[in-house]
């Protein structure tokens, strides 16, 4: 659980990504230790979601490598990354709105199922067997675990925001992930929902042995949960370490508050007043 000691499960190295002339990421590099909870923080527009999208394969970086379990996946397409064990949720919930909770979760297992078209049309043998096994596992390991059994047959579109986030996590868990990437898992949630989600994230790590990589703004939660925090600002890593190290880092304080020196800020505020008086 101490970053750098074990072989990292996910390694990002020298990642540069630009859209037209705008550099979204510049030489971004960090490591995610297996079994850790690693959080990427940074002000709005720092490039956190771009980083996530690059890791899950939507964006092709101009330079740099992404290694997953020691294997270079920089050129791997998103569906193959999913099969390897890289699961993610989205900031603005990307559930399938026309489907029930159960079907959404089952979709997570897609890449691990073998049913082909012919099996499916006749729903016999393999298809039926696989579906029943899947249903049982989804019910007993995921729905139970995330406490969403009361909504399993509901269409996703009628659920509250907090529940939708939970269903999205359930779907990601159905993917049998090795690394679970969560993009702002508690954004827009109230205190209680946030605490529930924090508990689920810790439980996922404990019970499933899944490594968690998340982007989050809720500082309280980040500092409580994370083993390792990476701070991005203007597309660059400005700090990287334990929560305590990062909190004490003057660069980080500057990025969040605009200035490292509070007394200087106070002085600047008071000067015009003094002139006026």
């Amino acid at each position, binding site marked *: 659980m101490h970053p750098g000691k074990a072989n990292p499960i996910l390694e990002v190295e020298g990642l540069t990504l630009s859209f037209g002339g705008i550099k979204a990421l510049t030489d971004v590099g960090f490591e995610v230790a297996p079994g850790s909870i690693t959080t990427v923080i940074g002000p709005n527009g720092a490039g956190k979601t771009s980083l996530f999208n690059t890791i899950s394969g939507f964006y092709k970086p101009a330079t740099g490598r992404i290694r997953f379990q020691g294997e270079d996946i920089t050129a791997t397409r*998103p569906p193959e990354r999913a099969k390897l064990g890289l699961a993610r949720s989205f900031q603005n919930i*990307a559930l399938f709105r026309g489907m029930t909770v159960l079907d959404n979760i089952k979709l997570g297992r*897609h890449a691990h199922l073998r049913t082909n078209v012919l099996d499916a049309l006749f729903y016999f043998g393999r298809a039926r067997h696989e579906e029943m096994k899947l249903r049982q596992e989804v019910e007993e390991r995921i729905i139970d675990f995330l406490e969403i059994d009361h909504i399993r047959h509901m269409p996703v579109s009628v659920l509250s925001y907090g529940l939708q986030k939970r269903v999205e996590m359930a779907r990601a868990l159905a993917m049998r992930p090795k690394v679970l990437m969560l993009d702002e898992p508690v954004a827009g949630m109230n205190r209680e929902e946030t605490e529930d989600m924090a508990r689920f994230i810790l439980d996922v790590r404990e019970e499933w042995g899944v490594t968690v990589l998340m982007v989050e703004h809720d500082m309280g939660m980040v500092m409580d949960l994370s083993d390792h925090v990476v701070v991005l600002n203007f597309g660059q890593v400005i700090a990287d370490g334990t929560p305590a190290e990062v909190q004490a880092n003057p660069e980080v304080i500057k990025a969040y508050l605009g200035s490292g020196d509070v007394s200087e800020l106070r002085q600047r505020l008071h000067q015009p007043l003094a002139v006026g008086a």
Partner: protein
Amino acid sequence: MRIGTARSSYRHDESLFDSRTQHAWLAVLAVALLGFPFFADEYWLYLACLVAINIASTTGLNILTGYTGLVSLGQAAFMGIGAYTVAALEQKLGTPVLLNLLAGGFVAMLGGLVVGLPSLRVKGLYLAIATIAASVVLHFVFANWHSVTGGHAGITVAPAEILGVSFDTSFRLYWLFVPITALMVLGAANLFRTRIGRAFIAIRDRDISAEVLGIPLLRYKLLSFGLSSFYAGVAGGMWAYFFRVVTPESFPLIMSIFFLAAVIVGGMGTILGAILGAVFMTMVPEALKLIVGWLPLSADATLILSPVRTIVFGALIVGFLVFEPLGLQEIWRRIRRFFHLWPFRA
């Protein structure tokens, strides 16, 4: 949810029809379908066969447009491929009927795979235009590949013959078409209980997150095109045995629009919707014809009223789009919900 249907196993919960009431109604439907040919006259049997063919094709298009979200205006052209394949096989080789129908499906499927290729890059209206282009190309092929299609004159098809029985009347064809269509509909229903069907819906609802879940978009879009045109091909094959002559003009663009309208009017992305839509689109013009026939009018007035019929039909479709965008199946569902608690609660 309906009360009094406590389910005690996952298998029960996952079945297509899970309540006793549904099983009872299915039995009623089966009896009605079995009994129908013995009571109906030639005209109604003719309509029943046509409805069966249209249900098969609409169900196919529904897989592509309703479930996968890819709009296609090529369904009639794919039916044409199936019809020509069956006609050519029947004429040149005289192979067994069921084999011909399967072959029609597979050849149409190949066509669908080719036409589906642009679907990775183009969506919505652009894809619709691409499929129109494909149907124009296919029409050209039908009209000009003389050695196989017989050019503009087309091919005359001998009656289907299985084990010495000649399927030359609507009564006999009914016993061929209805089981085939029932199997195809059942297959489609099964498809959406498995990972394949779920992947289609995922692509329709949000293709980006489908990709992250490990669904290769191109492969599944092509699969959807392939399945949809397989259904069209088999339906086209049945069409060939039904009308017994296949010409390039048999499968015009308006027919593709007919199927798309059936999918929308019935309710996109539901098995029942495709059935109801196909029945509606086939039967309502006939019903209107009957109603005009019953009106005590002179022959002249009937002649004048025939365009009015078309207008009423069009207005009905527009009405559905405006007042019930979820289609006929939603109306059906509402009726069912009402009767769940009736007469204890209105």
